[in-house]
């Protein structure tokens, strides 16, 4: 009974882009446009591979709008996919997370934490010779 509706699923945000992270509303100089797709897929083994296979088998860049639309249609054929949406033109939040492990002895730890504090980084692990910081932010 516990798991009755917990159809385990993973949300994927797939972004196809090159150097222009974050510039998603404007066309770049090449006339290409990044697309951000949101997908709801079964949590089955190899599902990420199944999705990326659809993109990679075309062999070309998937940035042009026409190809982007076709891509969505091809993704729709995947049995393990519940829903795909092109959210490029919808407002959405996009965040990145970074974990940084620093070799540092206990004597210098305070300095590191001070710098980390300036950048809103959080210590998530420490030992006598390392410290691990967590940093989150938008993609710019």
């Amino acid at each position, binding site marked *: 009974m516990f798991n*009755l509706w917990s159809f385990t699923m993973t*949300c994927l945000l797939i972004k196809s882009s090159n150097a222009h992270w974050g510039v998603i509303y404007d066309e770049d100089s090449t006339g290409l446009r990044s697309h951000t797709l949101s997908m*709801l897929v079964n949590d089955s083994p190899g599902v990420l591979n199944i999705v990326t296979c659809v993109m990679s088998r075309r062999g070309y860049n998937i940035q042009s709008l026409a190809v982007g639309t076709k891509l969505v249609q091809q993704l729709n054929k995947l049995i393990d996919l519940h*829903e795909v949406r092109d959210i490029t033109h*919808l407002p959405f*939040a996009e965040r990145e997370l970074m974990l940084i492990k620093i070799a540092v002895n206990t004597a210098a730890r305070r300095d590191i934490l001070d710098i980390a504090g300036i950048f809103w980084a959080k210590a998530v692990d420490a030992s006598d010779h390392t410290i691990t910081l967590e940093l989150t932010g938008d993609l710019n």
Partner: protein
Amino acid sequence: MSTMAAAAPNTSCSKPSTFPSSCSKTLKPIFSFALPFSPLPHKTTLHRSLHISSSLSQPNPKPTSAAAATAVATTISTTTGQETFVSRFGPDEPRKGADVLVEALEREGVIDVFAYPGGASLEIHQALTRSNIIRNVLPRHEQGGVFAAEGYARSSGRPGVCISTSGPGATNLVSGLADALLDSIPIVAITGQVPRRMIGTDAFQETPIVEVTRSITKHNYLVLDVEDIPIVVKEAFFLASSGRPGPVLIDVPKDIQQQLVIPNWNQPIRLAGYMSRLPKSPDEAHLEQIVRLISESKKPVLYVGGGCLNSSEELRRFVELTGIPVASTLMGLGAYPTADEYSLQMLGMHGTVYANYAVDKSDLLLAFGVRFDDRVTGKLEAFASRAKIVHIDIDSAEIGKNKQPHVSVCADLKVALKGINKILESRSNRGKLNFSAWREELNDQKVKFPLSFKTFGEAIPPQYAIQVLDELTNGNAIISTGVGQHQMWSAQFYKYKRPRQWLTSGGLGAMGFGLPAAIGAAVANPDSIVVDIDGDGSFIMNVQELATISVEKLPVKIMLLNNQHLGMVVQWEDRFYKANRAHTYLGNPSNESEIFPNMLKFADACGIPAARVTKKEDLRGAIQKMLDTPGPFLLDVIVPHQEHVLPMIPSGGAFKDVITEGDGRTTY
């Protein structure tokens, strides 16, 4: 072998710790659904909005559940006839996974399989011997097995089943799976796999076949829990035959085949996303619009393909009501009778002049169950450039893929045509459609540019051989082919009367398809005449299947159009490479005067009667003898290699580039 057998009894571990628990975890909870699918899409929407940021929370109004579920329910109910299925096992009797697998096939109505055994699949074969419902036709190569399963499916409409072992057995299925995907043929391929604990260790005969076949199957499964076998098989057959049909592969590790289990046959299908995307019934307004376009048009033409094979009756009715001429793709041959007066026969690269003329001049193209393949369209911009396009297809990804339609309907063509016919019937008293001027124009083209061939002395024109076969079988035989010139001539010169009579590798163009496909057709249609019209190159690619035909006593006739060359490539060499022969001679270069190889001896080696015919005057008698001989027969028809398949629109060309003259006796 003995070690394998000894290992059998003590492998009933229920959950090997070596495997990530997520595998079974993800499957388990789903089983507990009481209702099959309708509630699911609903729930996923809710679920999603919890996971993604709130700015997304405008879930698409999904018209999913009701329509999809009802559409699906009808399909499912055909399989629920298994309520009456009587199992060989008691309800609480543990049995091996392999026995569960075989019973699952039985419950899907399978009576024939094409299975070639090996180390990782012998458990399945042992279980097959315990089944008194399923007959195995033993191919001599796994590729023969999968092509036979395709021939079975193509000729009967029922899913074909092939089984092979792991590693090389599985990789030998690859061509057949790709072929089935490109031609949308429902097959279920089952492969043995090394035991779970050995997966990923480069074990003997291990290939990651699920990874290998990912992009050439509609869907595939690696079974990691013996309890999943019933539901995986049920889903596989449903996926293979619903929506746009296609191949589904099930990879079953050997330890799972051996594991003892009491199966649960009542697990509901877990295909919520897929179900929600199955096409709904077509919108009445769209159908009305199509009828309006038809009544406004002066030069409409039908472009029908493989998607029409189940809607032959509705298509005939539609033509009856409208009088619109019908051009067929290679895959659609037979959906509308080829010899009928409204038929323009095949269109495309090697289509008739009048079919391509009709599309070129038309003002309304009715594209039903087709995908605007490059062999049909040639240069896309020039294809049907004067026409409004109506596209009906079951696969939404095909609509607008190559050509942007003016009106499109994503639906089962059968349902759509029924709807259109109903509208046409209701308005039949108000102003009849009349396209006789247009048909007159096309008839002129038929007279001006008929399909034709020339005769040179005593030599047998290959086209003539097919024409005679058509006459002598009264257009009623099931025809399979290899790939190349003989395939195109078989498409042009045999007059198909009904769908599923024409079995050919269209999208993939896999040589070696003809002989095993004929096996599948003969197994599925024991009372039909089955003729494999083959080329010498294609025939030899699966020549080993002669052994299968012989021992299974299948009445397969083989009419070999033997020109000692790779004919289609020779034709291209003649036309575009100054007739430079680049490894396209298949005879023996050191003795060109003798036919090589001697195909009659292949037949003889398998105890199949055979004959060779070289003169035109002897041909009719030879074909008659082939048809009159009970059981299989090989007729080796020696034909000149200079013949070209005509008409021909060079690839990427347009209608104006059509070639109607010439052969390999001319230089270009």
